[in-house]
């Protein structure tokens, strides 16, 4: 595949990837720090190139329900927003999960709670991985740490969304959304034809052919026995994700005395902290979860029995650290370090926290 070099913001990379990955429709409502997603789509006018629909809805609630409608017909549809907007979408997300509809939702996280700030944050980890909406459901959550990953993960998201018939979230943050880096883009993947949709999404409501009964898309089931069976089925999918689709990156973990666990932009900062720590003679490794659900529990468990301590770094008051602790099962000390409310920790602060809370602590 021909690769073309571009220099783009993370948000623009999401939009570019949507067009090039054969996305059928984007429905969104602007909010800082992710407005460049729709801006780039409107500039590129994909409806003229690939036939992709781009629509500015009247609200986030409308956007996510347009996604529900589009996904119900077997189309590749998506939305993007930032924290307060994603909160508005929670009802739609649990309905999408319940009705087993594939779609992509991008959250370029900003500091909260409430309207909060427009600066980067990672305080939506719980919302993304522990429900957000009501009921027992999970989304598959990808955490990109570079502009290239913002692009690549859109393609991966479609594969996962249709493999499992599930909403996929790309959980990014203001820093990865706004930073501009080198990006290699590939050829345009054509949008699915009606025949391809019929083949790849036979469950979808794209019109009833004579050979089969009606397809019904719903998250409602008033018979509790059937609803429990449906829950078993959903849980089986989540267990399959845990077996087959956990993704992570391990840097210098083989002979590490201390382990940093961080995702997204915190992982980039942690990597720099790791370099600074090495100059001081510390053996530091970095485990970067790429999927936040399913979480790399097994990998962290293995490392927990080898290292002297783990520092979980996240721009929050301590959310992912809960999963790190569950994985480590008290085999070593696990601490959290974070700045929040839109403040980004410096690599020096991360190293200092590692020294104070783990190495000397």
């Amino acid at each position, binding site marked *: 595949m021909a690769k073309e070099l571009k220099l783009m913001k993370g948000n623009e990379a999401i939009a570019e990837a949507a067009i090039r990955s054969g996305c059928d429709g984007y429905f969104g409502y602007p909010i800082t720090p992710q407005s460049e997603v729709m801006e780039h789509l409107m500039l590129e006018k994909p409806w003229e190139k690939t036939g992709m629909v781009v629509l500015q809805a009247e609200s986030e609630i409308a956007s996510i329900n347009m996604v529900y409608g589009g996904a119900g017909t077997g189309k590749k549809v998506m939305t993007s927003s930032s924290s307060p907007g994603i909160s508005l979408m929670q009802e739609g997300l649990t309905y999408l999960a319940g009705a087993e509809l594939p779609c992509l939702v991008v959250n370029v996280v900003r500091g909260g709670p409430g309207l909060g700030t427009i600066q980067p944050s990672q305080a939506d980890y719980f919302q993304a991985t522990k429900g957000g909406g009501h009921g027992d459901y999970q989304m598959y959550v990808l955490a990109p740490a570079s502009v290239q990953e913002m692009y690549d993960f859109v393609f991966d998201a479609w594969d996962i969304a249709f493999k499992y018939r599930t909403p996929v979230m790309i959980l990014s943050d203001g820093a990865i959304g706004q930073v*501009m880096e*080198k990006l290699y883009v590939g050829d345009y993947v054509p949008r699915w034809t009606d025949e391809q949709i019929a083949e790849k999404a036979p469950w979808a409501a794209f019109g009833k052919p004579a050979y089969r009964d009606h397809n019904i898309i719903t998250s409602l089931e008033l018979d509790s026995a059937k609803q429990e069976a449906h829950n078993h089925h959903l849980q089986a999918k989540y267990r399959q994700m845990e077996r087959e689709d956990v993704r992570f990156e391990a840097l210098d973990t083989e002979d590490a005395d201390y382990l940093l666990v961080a995702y997204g932009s915190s992982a980039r900062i942690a990597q*720099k902290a790791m370099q600074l720590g090495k100059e001081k003679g510390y053996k530091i490794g970095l485990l970067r979860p790429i999927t936040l659900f399913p979480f790399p529990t097994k990998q962290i468990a293995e490392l927990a029995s080898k290292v002297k301590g783990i520092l979980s770094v996240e721009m929050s008051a301590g959310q992912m650290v809960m999963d790190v602790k569950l994985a480590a099962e008290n085999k070593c000390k696990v601490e959290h370090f974070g700045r929040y409310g839109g403040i980004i920790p410096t690599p020096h602060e991360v190293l200092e926290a590692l020294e104070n809370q783990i190495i000397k602590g």
Partner: protein
Amino acid sequence: MTEEIIIAGFGGQGVLSMGKILAYSGAMQDKEVSWMPSYGPEMRGGTANVSVIISDERISSPIISQFDTAIILNQQSLDKFEHSVKPGGVLLYDPNGIIHPPTRTDINIYKVAATEKSAELGMSKVFNMIVLGAFLKVKPVVTEEFIEKGLQKSLPERHHKLIPANLEAVQTGKSLVETVHKL
């Protein structure tokens, strides 16, 4: 080689676009680059800053707090970033509007009267390219050839006729830069 740079000044001075041209030029020269803007409320009519990293290796954090070079275009930015320059690093500033000049003695300090020069030339729009030229004289992290390629890549086609004037401004900056304090 890794060069970590902050460019800071007023919104409208071309701070972000100067960073963009630098990043594009680095990318054209096959370097790893990152460009991280301030996008907070301050950019809406106040100060603007952008950190640019140009490196031969994969860039770890695009978010940095200490810099090899600070390019400073107003007093507020000087106050904010003078102490974030790494010891032995470079501070380049435009003296226009600077009431309290930098005082550090453990860094190299240069100045470029770009505001004055661009006004004199009647070309206020190339102000940032004069500053960029001054920076490249002090730290030749990208070559001239790639600045031209960077301009071609970052400017829309309809503005390509302005490239020669921009390159000339880079030359002006190179000859205009003055040493204030050298280690």
